[in-house]
């Protein structure tokens, strides 16, 4: 952790010169060389590094794409096709960028689920977690606006549907919607401001990433046991230990990324987006990008009015509420034990929550048909997507608002090891007589 004792000693004249004026080499040395990391981190901890290279890759490919892109409703679609056909390696840049967005979200979802599994959000890491949630929100805004830029059918209708959410807000809703659109419908002003914002937001993300890393370096990394670092034997130096492990994690991730870019570049997209936007022709099913599908399912699950709240506003509130839950997690979890490794019940519910999120994602891609939860209970199983979505939404919120707070109070955790070093040594003793707490799987990797 950051004890504040810098071990950096400038060796060359230039280093001494800098160190006396602006100690940048010292900052780099302390942050990325000598920085102590827990020795028991598994590969789930490589996703922070993976996310930073994805951000860098998105910004680099994005800047070059912007050099060839035209944000005019009459030209946008053809300008993207010009990139695909005539710009040198344009097809590669564009496929890297569009699939890069998807893999950015793959990585961020693994990163978030890792945090939920190992209790990484607990004191003193609440602020670190919230900064991460802000990055996630900014990513969603950036991803959504980026999907509008190629000006295909899904771009246009996705933008129409999503900006339409805001009109559900009482009093100021229509004003916000018109401000977003720059008019009364998705048109040229919308495309231009989305392009401007799509170029701006990644740099805001980069800014919040700096704060995220700063906060991380103050409180130090959590680890699979959830026990704080107690002595020097609990840690290893960032370089070479974490650097080489992160590098390997990155290469494996890039392998999957490259597989999609080169062999399945349109797998994660929608065919309709290769048809130019047509305001007079609504596609049969308007579906957002896959990374929004769970929230889209929650939005459409609210098909009923609750008092003064109509179903549209209710859906929007639930959708934003689903994201807001993440911000509250540090205070919703009442358990004193961080890691799910030592919490058998939480671990079970965590995996059910993962399954629930995947199910919601699938439901978000299906048409909003069926009688709903009540008819599901009396046996309407066939094609009752709304019913399943309502059940899954109920579990989603119950996980945060009921299971997390209650479980922390009633669950008996397994025996915790005294230190990270003890946990590591217990585990390495081998198969005989599984020591309690060191048996659970994910932390044995790496």
């Amino acid at each position, binding site marked *: 952790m950051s004890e504040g004792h810098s071990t950096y000693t400038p060796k060359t004249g230039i280093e001494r010169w800098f160190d006396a004026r602006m100690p940048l080499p010292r900052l780099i040395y302390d942050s990325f060389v000598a920085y102590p990391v827990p020795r028991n981190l598994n590969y789930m901890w490589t996703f922070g590094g993976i996310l930073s290279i994805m951000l860098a890759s998105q910004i680099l490919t994005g800047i070059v794409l912007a050099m060839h892109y035209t944000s005019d409703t009459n030209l946008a679609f*053809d300008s993207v096709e010009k990139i695909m056909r005539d710009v040198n390696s344009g097809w590669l840049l564009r496929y890297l960028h569009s699939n890069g967005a998807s893999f950015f979200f793959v990585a961020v979802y693994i990163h978030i689920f890792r945090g939920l599994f190992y209790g990484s959000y607990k004191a003193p890491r609440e602020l670190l977690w919230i900064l991460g949630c802000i990055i996630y929100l900014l990513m969603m805004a950036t991803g959504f606006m980026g999907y509008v830029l190629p000006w295909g059918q899904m771009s246009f209708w996705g933008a129409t549907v999503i900006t339409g959410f805001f009109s559900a807000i009482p009093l100021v809703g229509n004003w916000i919607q018109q401000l977003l659109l720059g008019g009364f419908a998705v048109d040229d002003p919308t495309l231009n401001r989305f392009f401007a914002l799509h170029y701006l937001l990644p740099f805001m993300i980069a800014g919040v990433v700096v704060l995220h890393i700063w906060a991380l370096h103050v409180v130090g990394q959590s680890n699979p046991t959830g026990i704080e670092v107690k002595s020097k034997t609990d840690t290893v130096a960032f370089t070479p230990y974490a650097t080489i492990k992160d590098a*390997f994690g990155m*290469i494996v991730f890039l392998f999957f990324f*490259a597989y999609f870019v080169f062999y399945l570049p349109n797998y994660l997209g929608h*065919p309709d987006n290769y*048809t130019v936007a047509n305001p007079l022709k609504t596609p049969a099913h308007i579906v957002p990008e896959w990374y929004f599908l769970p929230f889209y399912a929650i939005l459409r699950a609210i098909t009923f009015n609750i008092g003064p709240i109509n179903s549209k506003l209710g859906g929007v509130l639930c959708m934003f509420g689903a994201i807001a839950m993440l911000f509250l997690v540090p205070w919703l979890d009442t358990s004193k034990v961080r890691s799910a490794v030592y919490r058998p019940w939480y671990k079970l519910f965590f995996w059910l929550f993962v399954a629930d999120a995947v199910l919601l994602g699938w439901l978000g891609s299906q048409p909003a048909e069926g009688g709903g939860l009540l008819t599901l209970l009396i046996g309407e199983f066939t094609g009752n997507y709304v019913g399943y979505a309502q059940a899954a939404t109920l579990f989603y919120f119950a996980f945060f608002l009921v299971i997390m707070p209650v479980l922390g109070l009633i669950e008996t955790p397994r025996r915790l090891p005294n230190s990270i070093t003890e946990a590591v040594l217990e585990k390495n003793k081998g198969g005989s007589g599984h020591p309690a707490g060191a048996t659970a799987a*994910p932390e044995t990797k790496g």
Partner: protein
Amino acid sequence: MKKILTSLALLGLVVAGTAAIAAEEEHNPAAPTHFPINEPKEMSWSFAGPFGTYDKAQLQRGLKVYKEVCSACHSMNLVAFRTLEGLGYSEAQIKTLAAGYTIHDGPNDAGDMFDRPGKPSDHFPAPFPNEQAAASANGGAAPPDMSLLAKARGVERGFPRFIFDIFTQYAQGGPDYIHSLLTGYDQTPPAGMVIPEGTHYNPYFLSGVSLKMPKPLSDGQVTYDDGAPQTVDQYARDVSAFLMFAAEPHLEDRKKTGFRVMVFLLLFGALVYMTKRRVWADVAH
């Protein structure tokens, strides 16, 4: 790791169960609720898979079908003649091919519009001056531009096939769909089905029971000079492959580059992994 796998398997079962229940829908052949009625037939394409390449002879035949049949109604605005080098034509052949088209250009120095023979840098001229003209000449529905048709059409694969598609690298939904549609005419609709006036029944059509386009191809309609069978099925295969090329002219380049990238990442990954083992050898973790 084992726990993760068991959890994933469990998760898969939950999703599979729901999907199976959802798939079991009531069936009335005269009033289908989901389109297409029939799923596209999966054909074998030379450009499928990690080492796929275009069959140049097939693309040339496909171009012939486009020129002699499709282009009467369908534009292909995004494709330049020079792109056809990918079909194996020489520069001189493309010049001749382009010169066969008349391009409306201008204004010239006198301010007049004029017609001139096409150049390799020109794009295929559209059969109608604008969308309205195209729609009014075709019973109210403008024939779609064909430049991206092979990527703009695709039937949803559904669970669990969309999972398998990742491993089989299935990315031929567009050409499969076009081939099935073109060979899917001449079928008798189920008794009681209402086919709107001026449309043609085709159980492979993506968004309804019938479409405005009449059966475009018939046996022997286009003369091939390379001995390939002159059948509707062959025409449909060839033009579908050509449309895939029109939509994705850099496909071969992409797959070739991809293979090099994958080999590099494998080797580099192996080296980094061995280095990692060495670095961590002295630390229990």
